[in-house]
């Protein structure tokens, strides 16, 4: 028995399961991956540099376009940062509206991800079903905000649109409908033989490793660490009750379960927010320019995003730095890859819920 022959297979940047461009050079021995070398940089757009030429109010819309799925949370994180720099007190109603739109984004993002995962292991019926459910959520965003995904409703000092009481009731009805429909597919996600065969025991990251690798979001919670940036109580989360979803197994199945159960938590948070939303103003006028430096965290569907903003008293910021959750999860992904089968790579790639255009900005 001589040394096994090694083969290098390029995974991406164009790959059927991964719409976003990341390349992995997979070094294989037979069907086993022994090493993975990532290469990113295909969709760098230089959005952070735009702070030099767009004023701090215009930058909300640039920040929103960093990610096409969790766009509202990007705009909200940026606005929260500027509001903290300028000591702006946002009206309570705006805080609640921010929570409602954030959680709608979380629901649609998790459903989209679940569909993509189902597609990755060849479960087409589940893929179609989840995307059918998701369609109602993006329709609701169009009805309330005017656009389907990049809703442009957040601004420094509050939100730009109000939701009427009738629409709030329609949102509650929609959450009940989605809950029913998601419960109908729960059995096929949690107990299905095919799903379990492709996810249980694959890509295991234990609690210590997860913490050391600096993982974020559902990845971290899937490994048993109870950490959710919403516990910090930004926007109106301080007034709402929720328990972060935690699983201990740390494998692909645990991460799937975490994201699946988070859909129900998000739906519950929307209902709580609608029940508690106060009447009043939705934004306050912003006067002057920001000064100082701030770091702010917000929980996105993919995990914790961190914005570092540095302002110098002019209308243009000096620096904006974004640390996206996918960037935090790539080291974990590279740790999971060596030792796995080639056929499991797409499933592993999808359980980190990669958003490469976020990461490269």
């Amino acid at each position, binding site marked *: 028995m001589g040394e096994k022959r090694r083969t290098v297979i390029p995974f991406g940047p164009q790959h059927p399961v991964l719409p976003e461009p990341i390349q992995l050079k997979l070094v294989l021995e037979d069907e086993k991956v022994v090493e993975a070398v990532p290469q990113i940089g295909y969709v760098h757009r230089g959005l952070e540099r735009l702070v030099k030429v767009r004023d701090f109010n*215009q930058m*909300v*819309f640039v920040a929103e376009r960093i990610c096409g799925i969790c766009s509202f949370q990007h705009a909200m994180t940026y606005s929260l940062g500027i509001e903290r720099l300028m000591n702006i007190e946002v009206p309570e109603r705006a805080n609640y509206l921010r929570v409602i739109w954030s959680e709608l984004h979380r629901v649609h993002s998790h459903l989209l991800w679940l569909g993509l995962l189902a597609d990755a292991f060849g479960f087409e*019926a589940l893929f179609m*079903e989840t995307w059918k459910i998701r369609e109602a959520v993006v329709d609701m965003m*169009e*009805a309330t905000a*005017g656009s389907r995904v990049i809703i442009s409703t957040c601004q420094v000092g509050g939100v730009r649109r109000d939701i009427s009481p009738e629409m709030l009731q329609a949102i509650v009805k929609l959450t009940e409908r989605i809950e029913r429909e998601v419960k*109908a597919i729960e059995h096929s996600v949690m107990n299905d033989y095919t799903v379990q065969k492709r996810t249980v025991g694959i890509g295991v990251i234990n609690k210590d490793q997860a913490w050391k690798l600096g993982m974020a979001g559902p990845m971290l919670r899937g490994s048993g660490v109870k950490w959710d940036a919403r516990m910090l109580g930004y926007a109106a989360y301080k007034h709402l009750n929720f328990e972060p979803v935690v699983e201990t197994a740390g494998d692909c199945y645990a991460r799937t379960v975490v994201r699946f159960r988070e859909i129900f938590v998000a739906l519950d948070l929307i209902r709580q927010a609608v029940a508690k939303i106060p009447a009043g103003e939705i934004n306050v006028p912003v006067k002057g320019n920001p000064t100082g430096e701030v770091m702010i965290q917000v929980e996105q569907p993919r995990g914790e995003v961190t914005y570092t903003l540095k302002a110098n008293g002019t209308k243009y910021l000096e620096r904006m730095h974004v640390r996206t959750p996918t960037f935090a999860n790539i080291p974990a992904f590279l740790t999971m890859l060596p030792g796995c089968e080639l056929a499991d790579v797409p499933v592993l790639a999808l359980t980190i819920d990669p958003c490469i255009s976020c990461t490269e900005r």
Partner: protein
Amino acid sequence: MFGMLKPILKNWAGKPATRLYPFDKRDAFENARGQLEIDIDNCIFCGICVRKCPSTCLTVEKANSKWELDPYNCVVCGVCVEACPKKCLHMNKNYRTAAYVKENDSQIGKPPVKKAVVE
């Protein structure tokens, strides 16, 4: 293994989830942001929309009374609509369809009337 059977049977017996698009169109929602339009006769060419626009898709030439929009650069955020002092900008709720030739929406208006100077 038969977990999906119930949703599949339900879908099989129920109505289709999609529309036959070109024949059956869904109306846009009431406040949807589709495309930017201007009522050029009321425009005073102040240029506030140009300064507020995050995507630099607008140009205004006061000397020629010209307002120009690059619709394929516009992100349809609606900031200009909120900022316009004369409320002459508005959003059409129907989205802009694909085009063979990408042309700017250029409009020439009436020059703003100068106030009479009292001597």
